């Protein structure tokens, strides 16, 4: 059984566009160390207390093996439990679940979960490298695949299966931009709001994706984020501003796109039946069950929005509307906060805040943590009781959901 687990502190660090333009440089290691340092101070902890360290994948800006060891050494940590979580972008979220399990077992007391990245590698190259790490170099890459191409194949199938219109998908981008223009670090903060027409008029990258259907890849110039987990019992002695980790779920199904479709089931679940699905469904079901909560309880949400259609699939998967219904859901203002909709990706998401290489997922996690603590960098929402973060990476390969709470639901 999972013990009561809490996020006892968080920290983040950025290299803004203004700083980068003025010539300032921050390596991923600097950003990771600064974030952890901030988190330790936030939690009233010292490095002596820390006995676990988890990271997501090593950054594009520093591709040494043993990335978790590189950070631990720099922080002068001695860990009993440490690894780089190799689940694409999802590792940056589900590492919280793995920390929770280790703490729950009694083996470790305080686990740092951290990652960082910067813009060291030009966006075009990192996209190309992304495609390669997500395509079979022998059987797929010769055909000119890159990250957006693989996702376009998923988006087109989703569009086909559920009759989604480009105008409906564009609403996801429109809503994300509304948040970004109020966030001091968002890539698109100075670009003003956009309309559905703006999205549909932007140039086609690969059908059905227009430029504004795609995330702003490789921005902001640098970012890092860290959270520290422990038991609620220990957290209470350090601070009254801890956040409960109430539930989590994960599902990893394949690596290369051709393996995503299969007639085989797993434990009775039809997880390989179509390209037009994300594991958000199974992951969120497990997370809701563990937390004893449902979609309507969520006061803040962050879903993976590499592309507008993907955002729709993830909203559906996490239960905010029925499968196939995201188009109508968006049209009715489902995520339009000004119209009473759910606050989703309140920093602007990947679509307008930016998707910075291997730290992207962490920026969304930190945004939710900040909102739950009542101290966002951008526009504030009513302090939520519960929040949900969903991540996926690869070609829909790895999926994870984490549910946080400012209180514990009554059983």
């Amino acid at each position, binding site marked *: 059984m999972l013990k009561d687990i809490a996020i006892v502190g968080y920290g983040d660090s950025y290299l803004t566009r203004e700083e980068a333009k003025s010539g300032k440089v921050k390596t991923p290691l600097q950003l990771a160390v600064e974030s952890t340092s901030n988190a330790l101070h936030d939690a009233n902890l010292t490095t002596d207390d820390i006995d676990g360290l988890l990271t997501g994948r090593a950054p594009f800006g520093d591709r040494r093996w043993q990335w978790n060891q590189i950070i631990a050494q720099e922080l002068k940590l001695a860990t009993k439990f440490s690894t780089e979580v190799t689940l694409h972008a999802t590792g940056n979220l589900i590492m919280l679940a793995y920390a929770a399990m280790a703490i729950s077992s009694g083996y470790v007391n305080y686990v740092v979960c951290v990652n960082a990245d910067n813009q060291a590698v030009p966006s*075009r190259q990192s996209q190309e490298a992304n*495609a390669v790490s997500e395509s079979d170099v022998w*059987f797929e890459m010769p055909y000119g695949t890159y990250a957006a191409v693989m996702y376009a194949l998923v988006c087109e*199938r989703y569009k086909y299966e559920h009759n989604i219109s480009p105008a409906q998908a564009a609403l996801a981008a429109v809503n994300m931009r509304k948040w970004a223009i109020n966030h001091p670090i968002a890539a698109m903060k100075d670009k003003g709001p956009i309309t559905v027409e703006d999205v549909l008029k932007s140039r*086609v990258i690969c059908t059905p*994706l227009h430029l504004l259907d795609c995330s702003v890849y490789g921005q902001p110039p640098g970012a890092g984020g860290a959270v520290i987990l422990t038991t609620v019992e220990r957290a209470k002695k350090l601070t009254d501003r801890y956040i409960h980790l109430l539930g989590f779920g994960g599902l990893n199904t394949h690596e*290369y796109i*051709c393996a995503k479709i299969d007639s085989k089931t797993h434990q009775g679940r039809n997880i390989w039946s179509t390209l037009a699905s994300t594991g958000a469904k199974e992951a969120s079901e497990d997370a809701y069950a563990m937390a004893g909560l449902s979609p309507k309880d969520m006061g803040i949400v962050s879903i993976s929005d590499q592309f507008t259609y993907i955002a729709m699939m993830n909203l559906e998967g996490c239960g905010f509307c029925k499968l196939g219904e995201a188009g109508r859901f968006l049209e009715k203002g489902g995520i339009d906060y000004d119209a009473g909709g759910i606050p989703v990706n309140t920093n602007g998401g990947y679509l307008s805040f930016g998707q910075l290489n291997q730290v992207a997922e962490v920026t969304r996690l930190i945004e939710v943590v900040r909102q739950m603590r009542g101290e966002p960098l951008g526009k504030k929402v009513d302090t939520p009781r519960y929040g949900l973060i969903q991540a996926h990476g690869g070609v829909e390969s790895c999926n994870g959901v984490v549910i946080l709470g400012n209180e514990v639901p009554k059983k």
Partner: protein
Amino acid sequence: MTITIRGKQINLQSGMDIAIGPYLYFRYHPMPDFQTFAEAAARDKLLIKRCKRCGNACSPARIACPKCISCELNWEESKGEGTVYTFTIVRQALSDAWNNKIPYVVALIQLTEGVYMLSHVVDADIDRIHVGMPVKVTFREFDGMKLPAYCPK
């Protein structure tokens, strides 16, 4: 057992990393089976695999049958027919090598044997390509190798 790609000789049994920028590389992992696949494609044959134990057809890249995990897979020549399961018209290239080729159509083809292959749709009116379109295999040059592509049936 080598194959030449992007001007470099790659050993299929050991693989190779090819740098594409200051910090990034393509990792050609060991894939001896690709030699068989490419040699057949050079002779205009599309090979898939079939499980000796349960009869399930699977991708030529497989080491074990995805249904029963038997490692006894036999090569089989595919009928080369299927439909477009999904596709995308690529209008922006990320590498100079592909800039000359846009627009090109990447597609996931569902072969009649139930195997999914990633490839291109060629020789088609681009505006008429659609999910469900019947296609048959043909062979074209990709990255200096003769590999399968699919044209309207």
